[in-house]
């Protein structure tokens, strides 16, 4: 059975800290790994990773995929209170087109 596991499930840091969120996956016919950020509204897309070892970056956020380890990390540097959210990781299957989501990591950034 396909599954995606995120860790930690929750995290509390102070502004300025750097955080690393983890995602491991077991997805049949794996095609892509996606990261979303969810505040008190619709999840918003952050990154889609399909190639191993190539970092994707957007401002203070970056992510990388390791297909050998079946995992991905999301890094956030110099955290701000606006980074407080649930971060969702999802594995995409090429044969079904479905996304399999992890449980999410709840990040709280304190001033």
């Amino acid at each position, binding site marked *: 059975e396909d599954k*995606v596991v*995120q860790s930690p*499930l929750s995290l509390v840091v102070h502004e300025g800290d750097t955080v690393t969120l983890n995602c491991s996956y077991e997805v049949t016919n794996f*095609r*892509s790994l*996606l990261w*979303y950020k969810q505040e008190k*509204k*619709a*999840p*918003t*897309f952050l990154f*889609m990773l399909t190639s191993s070892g190539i970092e994707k970056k957007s401002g203070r956020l970056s992510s990388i995929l390791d297909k050998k380890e079946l995992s991905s990390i999301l890094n956030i540097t110099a955290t701000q209170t606006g980074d407080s959210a649930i971060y*969702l990781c*999802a594995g*995409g299957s*090429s044969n079904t*087109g*479905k*996304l399999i*989501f*992890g*449980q*999410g990591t709840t990040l709280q950034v304190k001033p």
Partner: protein
Amino acid sequence: DVKVTQSSRYLVKRTGEKVFLECVQDMDHENMFWYRQDPGLGLRLIYFSYDVKMKEKGDIPEGYSVSREKKERFSLILESASTNQTSMYLCASRRGGSHDEQFFGPGTRLTVL
């Protein structure tokens, strides 16, 4: 900007009621999805639709049905609501024939009393 809207942000219903959750997208996307989100369980796929009149069961379809009569609209139906269907329901859409990201609506928090 892709916009996915859901008919209600909050909904309170009674056990046994028939409940309709509506989702509309304005980007001419072929694929549409319904998820429920529960603490500790993440998003779980209920039903999806690759195109008009088409529907496929997701991982937890029991107790739900769907309707896709028009391309822009995907409805989730709870035939007889039960308390274990209290949850956050999220709708998403995606361009057909692609493995691109899905675009999500703001969610409907349904409480069944």
